[in-house]
């Protein structure tokens, strides 16, 4: 397999990081800490890179092409960073207020339709009669669960939950537990697919490289060694690296 040096180094780095991160499932150790700090630093750096790219493409480019109003946006963008100033932190509230305001406006205007009215409408239109018995029964169960779950989340009218009415909340809890069981199984699927992705990378990209088969046990032994508490291992002693 002909691979250039840059790709080889890339695969080695990615492989080491993968193993180091997985070590956390067993115990905290110095290699995990290193990989984790790399992750956090890289994520922050990546955000800056794309933030810069966006500011340049959507702000700077139009500005240099003559859209002078963008000067205001640039000023607002820069004063966002006054939030770190001891005295003038409050100046950053103005651009933040614009962002928050847009966010609220966009979310509220659509939420009331997409997540409230559309859901009510779809429930109300379900047929219990005039369809085959099984569909009718299923739809009935559906309607009962939606109604009981909404009822369950009514908090400030305690009389709605007294005595026999408590049964409604019980049904709701059963409905939600079924949903949680379903979600849990799907999460297992997601996480296992992710593990598969990483193991597949290790086995089909890294291990075929020269030296990887020898390196793997060494890497694993080092990680295992790093998991021994500092006081119990012969070297290095606590206080030096940890």
């Amino acid at each position, binding site marked *: 397999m002909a691979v250039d040096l840059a790709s080889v180094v890339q695969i080695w780095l990615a492989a080491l990081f993968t193993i180091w991160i997985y070590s956390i499932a067993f115990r905290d150790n110095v290699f995990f800490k290193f990989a984790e700090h790399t992750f956090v630093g890289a994520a922050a750096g990546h955000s800056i890179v794309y933030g810069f790219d966006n500011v340049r493409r959507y702000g700077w480019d139009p500005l240099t092409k003559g859209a002078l109003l963008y000067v205001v946006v640039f000023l607002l963008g820069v004063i966002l960073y006054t939030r770190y100033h001891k005295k003038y932190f409050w100046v950053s509230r103005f651009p933040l207020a614009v962002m928050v305001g847009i966010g609220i406006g966009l979310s509220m205007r659509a939420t009331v339709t997409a997540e409230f009215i559309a859901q009510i409408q779809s429930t109300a239109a379900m047929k219990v009669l005039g369809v085959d018995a099984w569909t009718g029964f299923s739809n009935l169960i559906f309607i009962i669960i939606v109604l009981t779950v909404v009822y369950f989340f009514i*908090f400030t009218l305690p009389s709605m939950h007294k005595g026999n009415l408590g049964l409604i909340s019980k049904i709701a809890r059963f409905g939600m537990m079924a949903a949680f069981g379903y979600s849990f199984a799907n999460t297992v699927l997601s996480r296992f697919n992710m593990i598969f992705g990483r193991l597949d990378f290790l086995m089909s990209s890294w291990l075929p490289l020269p030296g990887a088969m020898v390196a793997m046990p060494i890497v694993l032994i080092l990680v295992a060694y790093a998991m021994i508490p500092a006081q119990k291992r012969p070297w290095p002693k606590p206080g030096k690296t940890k």
Partner: protein
Amino acid sequence: MLVAGRIFALGMLIALWVFIIGCMEMAKKKLPSFRKLAGLDALPEMVGRAAEMNRPVHYTTGLGELTGTVAPQLVAGLAVLGYVSELAAKYGVKIVYSVYQAQVMPLATEIMREAYIRAGKPDAFNAEDQIRYLSGEQFAYATAVQGFAERERPAANIMIGPFYAESMMFSETFFRIGSIQLAGTARGYQIPFFAVICDYLLIGEEIYAAGAYLSKDPVQCGSIQGQDLGKLIAWILMFVGVLATVAGSSIINDLLKA
């Protein structure tokens, strides 16, 4: 001037605004009463168990910032922290609060100190030992909490707030060391893990109700009451709509489409 097909939505939105603001105003005069929350009722038993076993209670509120969209969940978590601290002070149990957000530290200190004063044991509170800022990074915070669990083996673990991927790590670790657990979050993806592993659960919006009920804050209580009216309307519309559909009428459907 109105856009066809969006009229009912606008009317509904305005109605909801009126409910929410109106209830907040009303709550200033008289707080609404709340239904029982099964999760909260378990707390005295949990803290009592810790007292019997002479082991600490662990509390944490997950990630998120007081300035972000999940702030209300964090606020709810802090309100419950006050109540649990008071219980712990009364039972003479040590409660340890693991913190992810440095900005929360002063607020948490105030809340816990007041709780100890309410319990009549102001001297028993030691902020440095009981409020531990671990890290502002998700997995560093998560591993630090796990380390604490393994070392000090708390008898009870309470997690209320915005939780992310660390929910599974926490609930599994505390389960393994035998802690009795109460968890609550409004982050939908994480509720199933809590439901599977924890002994007691506050489901989704229940944490807001718990926080409002315990803090007696009129804004929070009123807001929840306003939302309840919205839920009542949704309930009635669905109920009547289903009956109308059975009767062959699409009156509710047409109304909602307006």
